[in-house]
């Protein structure tokens, strides 16, 4: 964990501008076994210091791959010079956003390192289990990946703090062949916020999930192509999370709103069924910690929840300090940077569609002819809200009962149209947090959602 050696350098912040100084370390630990072969065995640490300066709407940023007091002085000077220099070219002259609070945010957790042998041993145990129990698989991959952010933040007129975000996962991927020799695959991620000791000291605890993954893969081996068209579907919770993040979340990031996203003209309008409520959570929900808690962002704003859709009405955007001032709202801590060399930009944290009242069984039983879309591999969305999710696991629904499994397919729609078709929402939420969101920089984000019945375009043959 970083020791604070930069606090005294706050005295070097220039007058008349807003400055944030950040010490930042990213660690990764990676092990990958492909059919038992160790193909990745790596430990990585990258630390440095950055400063960002806001000179009336023109920003300067500088970073150095060193963690020393001298490096802190250098980046403050360089970022200030960049901001002043660019200000002369840009012609911008925007009032600096007001302070929304100062103080210190306490360290939220610890990063507990695990030695590489323990990581490899855990992966071997899991791999051996799969190899022995499921010899009919054509391939198997077990990947352990752990990454953490460790940040110390000082701001000229906002909060300071020392925060860490450790997370670790084991991905299990399985391949099999259909009777025609066509490969099919499925994967599952285990783990979450914390380190190896929080999830994997007993690898046997993963076995039920691995067994379920195998069963679904065997279903998929016998799978069929979805019938292309506009269909009634039940989206699983993981798909709901993807929808929250990709289809809606990106369109309500204020920088994209300024760029012309569909959310701009729709603020305070009905954009979804009244059953839909969407929040970008900071750190806590229903008395518990969300998957990847954020207590302080990289502008020094203390993190709060950002309500986005309430009873189907678009009620807000996600902001940094500048956009919050522009839209006349309070920033909620969405300005985030992944590495020491990255400047903070508007990012999601834990974006979740809230649960409704129905059970999952009621949703499935209500569909005469449609699909149950369980899991997604990837997703993308556009300014218009047009989205795409790859569907890696799904089933037919016939007369209210699950039928044959689906081969890989894709669903698409326009978010604010599709969300108006949501007419049943289940009473639980599934979260995921293993992925990265890409928007200039990568970022660890959480996403969650309930099961939802809706209409959607599905690809197939």
């Amino acid at each position, binding site marked *: 964990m970083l020791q604070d050696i930069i606090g005294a350098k706050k005295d070097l912040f220039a007058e008349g501008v807003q400055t944030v100084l950040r010490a930042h370390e990213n660690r990764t630990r990676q092990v990958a076994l492909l059919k038992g072969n160790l193909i990745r065995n790596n430990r990585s640490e990258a630390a440095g210091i950055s400063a960002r300066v806001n000179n009336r709407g023109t920003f300067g940023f500088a970073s150095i791959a060193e963690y020393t007091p001298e490096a802190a002085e250098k980046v403050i000077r360089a970022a200030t010079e960049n901001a002043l220099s660019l200000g002369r070219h840009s012609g911008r002259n925007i009032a600096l956003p007001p302070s929304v609070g100062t103080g210190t945010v306490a360290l939220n957790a610890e990063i507990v390192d695990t030695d590489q042998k323990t990581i490899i041993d855990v992966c071997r145990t899991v791999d051996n289990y799969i190899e022995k129990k499921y010899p009919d698989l054509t391939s198997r991959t077990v990947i352990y990946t752990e990454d953490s952010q460790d940040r110390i933040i000082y701001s000229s007129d906002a909060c300071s703090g020392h925060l860490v975000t450790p997370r670790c996962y084991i991905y299990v991927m399985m391949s099999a062949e259909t009777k025609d020799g066509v490969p099919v695959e499925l994967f599952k991620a285990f783990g979450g916020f914390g380190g190896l000791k929080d999830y994997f000291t007993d690898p046997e605890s993963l076995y039920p999930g691995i067994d379920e993954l195998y069963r679904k893969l065997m279903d998929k081996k016998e799978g069929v192509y979805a019938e292309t068209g506009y269909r009634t579907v039940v989206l699983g919770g993981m798909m709901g999370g993807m929808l929250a993040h990709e289809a809606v979340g990106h369109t309500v990031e204020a920088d*994209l709103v300024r760029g012309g996203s569909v959310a701009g003209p729709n603020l305070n309008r009905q954009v979804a069924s009244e059953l839909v409520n969407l929040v970008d959570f900071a750190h806590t929900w229903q008395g518990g910690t969300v998957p990847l808690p954020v207590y302080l962002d990289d502008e020094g704003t203390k993190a709060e929840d950002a309500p986005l859709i309430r009873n189907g009405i678009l009620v807000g955007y996600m902001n940094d300090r500048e956009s919050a001032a522009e839209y006349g709202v309070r920033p909620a801590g969405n300005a985030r940077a992944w590495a020491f060399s990255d400047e903070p930009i508007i990012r999601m944290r834990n974006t979740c569609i809230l649960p409704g009242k129905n059970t999952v069984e009621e949703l499935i039983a209500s569909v005469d002819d449609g699909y149950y879309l369980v899991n997604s591999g990837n997703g993308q969305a556009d300014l218009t809200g047009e989205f795409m999710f790859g569907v890696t696991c799904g089933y037919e629904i016939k007369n209210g009962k699950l039928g044959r499994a689906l081969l890989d397919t*894709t669903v698409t729609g326009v978010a604010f149209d599709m969300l108006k078709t949501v007419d049943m929402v289940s009473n639980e939420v599934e979260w995921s947090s293993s992925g990265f969101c890409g928007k200039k920089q990568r970022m660890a984000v959480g996403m969650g959602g309930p099961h939802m019945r809706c209409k959607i375009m599905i*690809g197939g043959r």
Partner: protein
Amino acid sequence: MELRETTALLDGILREQGIGKYTYTLSESEKQELNIENGGFKLLRTVFGKAGSLKVFTDGRMGSASGNDLTEAGLRKLAGAAKTAAESASEDPCHDIAPDQGKEVFRQGEYKPDLDRFIERIREFLETAAKEYPEVRIMSGIGSFDRWHRIMRNTNGTEFETFAGQYGFSIEICASDGEKTTGLDYTGVSMKDLDTPFMELGDLRRHLEDIRKSISPETLQGKFTGTVVMTPGCAGEFLSMLLSNYIGEGVVINGTSLWLDKVGEKVASEKLTVSLKPYDERIVIGERATANGFRSEDVTLIDRGVLKTHRLSLYGANKTGRPVVKNTGGDLVAEPGDKTLAEIIAGVDRGLLLGGFSGGEPGTNGEFSGVAKNSFLIENGEIRCAVTETMVNGNLEDVFRRIRAVSKELLCDGDTVMPYIAADGIVVSGK
């Protein structure tokens, strides 16, 4: 400490720790980056970087570590982490380093930037775009100059030293008529110098033209099987998916590649020839040394439809008993065809000009489905309208077996060289 002194220090530390076999790369870098938001300058970013990556081999076991602390203490930590990782691993003699390739210094691109001229070129582009394409909004843009000094060494005697620098310019754009707004489009180029206005580089102008024509897209009804003409950027995406799913190292090692035993056989249309060409003069900074320590070579992957090789690193080659490919870069070059784009479109009864593909990642069976982005409907040999909520479905292998035509025109964006590629038999479906 100079980078060369750092290498000497690291060699000493590794010897001191009794590590007799290793390979590492140490680098110093600098980035100057100008960020644009909504057509104006927003942020100036300076990044001074250092990096070290080390792979060690002890008793046939491999471990690796990376970091950016190149002080003596940092190097000791790096060496210790890699050594510990190796000692924790199981023995696998397939992990190895390339034989001695000698010592060589590579100088690529522009090492000393002309930042004032670079800013003027960016300003010129923004002004030209605003004047000639008033409906188009440059939502965000990045102009960057990156330079790096890198030394790669291994214990077989190889030393590659690189001094390289390049300019890059990329944009994200949309268009609006005041009421309706298009979706996003993006493009970019890499450059050795600043001799040419950015508007004339890569396909920046075409993207601005196309987004302007996309303000009022139509939704297709029903589905049809037709011809898809992939733009160079889109063709590059599909080729990358094909190569990863059929000849990539992972699918060859695990045996799931459908082209596992197809080297020397026809796997695609004879109209398709695709290579990795790091020494092609149209590639700004081509790979000079592979990740395994070989001097990079130009490699033809598919020659007139015939598969020439899988893409195996030294590890993959040792693991499978197949030849190593001395190229781990992405300098993809496809050969041009004999028809112009206009001739290709004129020959299409019904299909799409596919500007982008947003889809699920195809599995090893090659099946794909996704949304057609920045795309136009072609009917009776003419481009009729932009489309929205339109999906394309097919199979990667089938697409490249059913190539109808490859264009004479080539997109050279500094990183790849790619023509338009038209293929038949793709399912296009609307709402």
